[in-house]
């Protein structure tokens, strides 16, 4: 009995980075004989329309995965989350002020303060 020759390809997991300020995100997997071809095929499979700035392929056997138990959360962790502090808004209102958010700070530092800039040049 002769065995049919089967080409066994390895599985590669594919990660795409959409912009330089984003992390690489897992989008799926494919089989390929080499990492070079995995890269080529990943581009054809996952990036026919979407643009990206970087692509990673990783052999599946090089990925270690956890069990769900490992990530189980029995305890209430609201004390370490923003939503554990919703009363702040009500408390600030008593002082006629409002709670500060990270978005507000980001907006404040992004708005260019021309006044100060020209003053600093002097």
């Amino acid at each position, binding site marked *: 009995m002769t065995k049919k020759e089967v080409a066994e390809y390895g599985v590669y997991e594919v990660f795409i980075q959409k912009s330089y300020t984003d992390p690489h995100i897992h989008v799926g997997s494919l089989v390929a004989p080499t990492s070079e071809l995995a890269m080529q095929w990943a581009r054809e499979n996952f990036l026919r329309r979407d643009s990206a700035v970087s692509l990673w392929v990783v052999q599946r056997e090089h990925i270690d995965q956890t069990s769900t138990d490992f990530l189980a959360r029995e305890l209430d962790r609201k004390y370490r989350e923003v939503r554990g502090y919703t009363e*702040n808004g009500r*408390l600030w209102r008593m002082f006629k*002020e409002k709670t500060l958010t990270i978005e507000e700070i980001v907006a*404040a530092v*992004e708005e260019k303060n021309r006044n100060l800039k020209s003053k600093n040049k002097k």
Partner: protein
Amino acid sequence: MNQEEMFMKRIKQGEKIEATDWMPDEYRQLLIKLIHMHAVSEIMGAYPEKEWVPKAPSLRRKLAIMAKVQDEMGHGQLLLRIVEDLVYPLGKKREDLIEDIYYHRVKFHNVFHMEARTWADAGLIGWLVDGAAIINQAALLSTSYGPYARVLKRICAEESFHMQHGENIILTLAMGTAKQKQMLQDSLNYWWESLLFFFGPKEVTPAAERMIHYRIRTLTNEQLRQKFFDKYIPRIHSIGLTIPDPHLKYDTEKKCWVYTEPDWKKFSEIVKKNNGPKSRERIELRRQAHEGGRWVRQAMLCKPVG
């Protein structure tokens, strides 16, 4: 176009530089100095608050401040990874980056040399020291160095919990007894000057100018300090506190805050010589933790027998 000009063209176009890209030596050195100090400040910054973990006034407060301390150590870890990649071509390793702390080869922010004397101090650190740090970090989100920009995004997301945590402690004290309110006022008096110093000198130093040139940062110290004033002064006043600066006022013409400058000399001595009220004690604890853990780090490398 030579390598340097190509690099500057990328920067001007708003591109992000990656760890393995070619970069001028000066750019690498500036990044190492900035991010190493940032990383070490996160780690040393956990100490003032960790001192309050055993003394927190309730179980919930204890859990929350512990969570925050853990976050700050985590920020230190994320940032040290960035520095590790930057110093790799220079032959330096994580061990060196940590040892630099107790051989006084790296500085950390003045605020973390100060003493957290009361629970109000712990709260004020969470509210205003974190507040100042968040302004700094938010302004760095647009940095030209890609790995730093990505890590800062993550850090800022976690800082939004720190903001709420700090506000909550402060609001509770502000609504408390006369004694609690007084404790809060004392705390503001103790920290105010430190907070002003935190943003650095008013003038743009040569190093800061180079950082702006490379778009590692885009705002000056004074611009950041003014942003801090904008956001926090009205809130500090609203809860009935007095800012210990009789000359503080908003100049409506120049559209900026006028204030009494901190004692620049005193605080830069603290940072340069590590001789603040708590510097030596905390650095010694860091040394013990690092040296004492050496055998564990080594043991973990060993393959199990059999």
